[in-house]
C-alpha cells in the first residue's frame, strides 16, 4: 500500500485530498502511477494532462516522473508551486 495526496487545483477537481492505493506489479515509477490514475476517466483523465504540468513528491521530496515508488511511500501530486 502507498498513500497518495493531492493538492491545490488537483484536490479541487477530484474533490478529495488523499487515498490509500495498492501498488501492482506494473506500477513501478511515478509516470506509471500517473498513467494508471489517468485511465480512471472523468476528472482523472485531465489530472496529468494539459498545461498544469503536474509535479510529484515522494516522502516529502520533489522527484522526477522516472522516480521509483515502493510500498509504504507517501506520494503527492500537485501543480507547479506558487509560494513566495
Amino acid at each position, binding site marked *: 500500500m502507498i498513500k497518495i495526496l493531492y493538492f491545490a487545483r488537483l484536490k479541487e477537481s477530484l474533490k478529495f485530498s488523499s487515498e490509500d492505493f495498492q501498488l501492482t506489479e506494473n506500477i513501478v515509477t511515478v509516470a506509471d502511477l500517473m498513467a494508471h490514475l489517468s485511465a480512471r476517466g472523468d476528472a482523472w483523465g485531465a489530472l496529468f494532462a494539459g498545461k498544469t504540468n503536474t509535479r510529484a513528491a515522494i516522502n*516529502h521530496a520533489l522527484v522526477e516522473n522516472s522516480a521509483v515508488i515502493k510500498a509504504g511511500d507517501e506520494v503527492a501530486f500537485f501543480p507547479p508551486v*506558487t509560494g513566495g
Partner: protein
Amino acid sequence: MTVRVQTADFDAGFELNQLRLLRPDTGAVVSFIGQVRDLNEGDNVSSLTLEHYPEMTEKALQDIIAKAKSNWNIFDALIIHRVGTLKPTEQIVLVAVTSAHRGEAFKACEFMMDYLKTEAPFWKKEKGVFGERWIEAKTTDDDAKLRWTAGNN
C-alpha cells in the same frame, strides 16, 4: 537556520534584529519581504489564500537554507512563510540572510527566493471580481532558478 510556517503575521524588524545580533562579526543583513498585491494580471485582488503541504513544507525550506549555506559563506538564514487567507498589503514571506560582507548575503537571499518560488510546496489562489482562480506558476521563476546552475553566479 530558522524556518517557520504560520498563519499569523510577523514583525520583520524584530526578526532582522534577532538575526543580525546572533554574531558580532555580522556585517551584512539582506532581506526580502513579499506582500499581497492589490492587482494581478490587471485585475483587482480582494484576497489571497495560501495552501501548503504541511508535512513537506518545513523540510523543503530547510533544504533551501542548506543549499544556500553550501553555496555561500553566510552566517545564518531565516525563512518565515505565511499560509491561510491574506488581504492586499499583508506580508506573505520573509527571507533574511546574514554574512560578513554584502556580496554573499545578496546572492544567498536571491538564491533562496528563487528556490522557494520553485521548490517549496505552496499554492496561491486569489479572489476578486473575476471570482476565484489559482495563480499560475511563471516560467520566469524557473528561469530565475536555472541561473544558479548555469555558472552565472
